């Protein structure tokens, strides 16, 4: 549809989804004001999202059926030594973001194959810090990917909280997406009143192994790097500020750990919902046991056309 005002169907779609730029949205609103039926339609588009959530969110919030929990269970049922190690790794994943810098020898060790080598990551971070080159700007994105933090949180599948360093004299001044060693990451830039600035680079990774904070230096840039759960973190600061940044890192990491501990645990909720069934250690496929008709999860297609309050778990 394109009317006299030049409003298209896609404009209406984006407007209903809240993904239309403000200037265009104003034109759409003007068109809607003059057309009650169109206004009703677009209002319904927006309402559909809410009603879909009302209808189906119960399934996302319900405990997982046993057979799905079993698919996800094997790694937790390995011998004790591995369980302890996994718990440590998962606890480390709580530290979603941390800062560090300092001196000393350090190597990145084994890096994920596709995320670039350790040297590449460090070189990229140092170059970005020195030049201030923003890389891919967040504002260049469209749709739901426009928010760098959300974009990155999706990649690591964990809630992401920006570290607040104002009490240490550093304020967050920018966050954007950057190209780092062949893949995209998130950069957080902090600035101090003195003009000093600090860049924190976050990349996603697949391995769960954590690593201690280690430091390096390239030219006039002090670098620190570590891995926590799905995160690979590189911090770049000016070479003459290594001591300050190192103290910030230690304080921040301790603060984040304490914060999560105070919430009742030292690890994020990484377990699938429901109670896993012990005894399956290496199986790659769980049997499809159909639940009895009156058991949770036993609803059929027929159940889905009943009101949302019926049979929900």
């Amino acid at each position, binding site marked *: 549809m394109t009317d006299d005002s030049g409003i298209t169907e896609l404009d209406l779609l984006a407007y*209903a989804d809240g993904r239309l730029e403000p200037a265009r949205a104003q034109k759409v609103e003007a068109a809607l004001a003059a057309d009650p039926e169109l206004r009703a339609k677009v209002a319904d588009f927006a309402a559909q999202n809410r009603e879909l959530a009302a209808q189906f969110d119960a399934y996302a919030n319900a405990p997982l059926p046993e057979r799905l929990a079993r698919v996800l269970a094997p790694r937790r049922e390995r011998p004790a030594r591995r369980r302890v190690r996994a718990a440590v790794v998962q606890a480390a994943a709580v530290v979603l973001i941390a800062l560090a810098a300092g001196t000393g020898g350090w190597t990145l060790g084994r890096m994920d194959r596709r995320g670039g080598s350790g040297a590449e990551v460090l070189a990229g971070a140092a170059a970005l810090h020195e030049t201030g080159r923003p890389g891919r700007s967040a504002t260049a994105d469209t749709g739901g990917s426009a928010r760098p933090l959300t974009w990155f949180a999706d990649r690591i599948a964990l809630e992401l909280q920006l570290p607040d360093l104002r009490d240490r004299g550093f304020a967050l001044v920018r966050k954007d997406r950057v190209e780092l060693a062949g893949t995209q990451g998130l950069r957080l830039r902090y600035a101090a009143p003195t003009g000093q600035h600090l860049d924190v680079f976050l990349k996603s990774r697949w391995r769960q192994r954590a690593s201690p904070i280690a430091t390096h230096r390239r030219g006039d840039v002090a670098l620190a790097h570590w891995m926590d759960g799905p995160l690979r973190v590189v911090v770049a600061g000016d070479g003459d500020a290594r001591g300050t940044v190192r103290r910030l890192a230690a304080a921040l990491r301790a603060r984040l750990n304490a914060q999560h501990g105070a919430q009742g645990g030292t690890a994020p909720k990484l377990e699938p919902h429901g109670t896993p069934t012990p005894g399956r250690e290496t199986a790659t496929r769980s049997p499809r046991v159909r639940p009895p008709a009156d058991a949770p999860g036993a609803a059929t297609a027929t159940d889905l056309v009943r009101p949302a309050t019926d049979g929900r778990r």
Partner: protein
Amino acid sequence: MTWLLARETPRLRRFAIAMTGSVEQGDDLVQDTLERALRKQNQWRRESSVRAWLFTILYRIHLNQVKRRRTEQASVSAMERSEVTPPNQDSHVEMLNMAAALRALSPDQRDAVLLVGLEGFAYDEAARVMGVPVGTLKSRLYRGREALWAVRGGGRGARVGKAGP
């Protein structure tokens, strides 16, 4: 990596159940998806989100299952086939909620609506999950929403079911 999968599984399950219209079929689909993801974990590209990768796996499995069912259905008699045909739009007055209303949509429209409207994927991400150009995704989404609007009682004479690209 199982904890990453566990983190995403509730969303996968919500989408699968909404898409198939059945808890049982949805859970089957999620189970297949998780098992495949565990086997193929080295195929995840860091350029895409874990969530998008898992949804893409799930969607492809679903399409293959639909295709296989169609093949199987081709061998049954016309009478049997009529019994499994889902309700068409003529029955929309009977529909009580969104789950039922979704049946009035073509599968492509329904899936676009669910990926964006229910799961919150950006248009380009949803297009990648479905393996179509973003313009196609938007067209399916618009047609799907328009059809939902009509099924739910809006706009008599609306262009319900108008073919998208």
